[in-house]
């Protein structure tokens, strides 16, 4: 299909380990977003990439979190020295960012469990 894909779908890691989550956006979508969704909570904005502009990192909760995106293609979200409070579903979304519509298309998410 042509939707947003994320990998892995599930990740269990030990506290203190680093994890890398991947997002493949829809082809042609210039904007890419990462969100965190804790159990029973809304989506928490983490970071936003738009084309070749500097990313908006204002939602990253600590310096253990970082993300990269190469051009308008895949993005990776890295969490270093994971903590139990990092357990959540990490959602990626992409958007065309054309005027009049800002519809974000979401991937299925990566469910991260830190033990």
């Amino acid at each position, binding site marked *: 299909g042509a939707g947003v894909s994320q990998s892995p779908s599930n990740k269990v890691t030990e506290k203190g380990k680093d994890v890398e989550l991947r997002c493949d956006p829809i082809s042609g979508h210039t904007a890419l977003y990462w969100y965190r969704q804790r159990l*029973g909570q809304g989506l928490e904005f983490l970071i936003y990439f738009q084309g070749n502009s500097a990313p908006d990192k204002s*939602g990253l909760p600590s310096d253990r979190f970082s993300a990269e995106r190469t051009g308008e293609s895949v993005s990776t979200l890295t969490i270093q020295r994971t903590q139990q409070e990092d357990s959540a579903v990490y959602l990626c979304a992409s958007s065309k960012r054309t005027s009049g519509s800002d*519809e974000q298309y979401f991937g*299925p998410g990566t469910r991260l469990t830190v033990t």
Partner: protein
Amino acid sequence: QKEVEQDPGPLSVPEGAIVSLNCTYSNSAFQYFMWYRQYSRKGPELLMYTYSSGNKEDGRFTAQVDKSSKYISLFIRDSQPSDSATYLCAMSEFYRDDKIIFGKGTRLHILP
């Protein structure tokens, strides 16, 4: 006060009933309002979007925005068991880069 408030539910209604889901917000600069539906273990999908105040209808779904009261609603007519999901309201100022603020979501169960 959080920027967007949404009752988490769960809300259980019988099949065929009219469902009303609501959010309130505090930021008067929000102009762009959305409702997302999220099935279990799936990402959210955009259901409805509206710009500024007014109503928008799409099939069994109607979105209402009352900017004077900072209150938005989603109505589902003739509810079906397949409508059972979590519904998240979301909003943004739109003309600025670019965070969309989401509510916590309301879990809806349609009972057959």
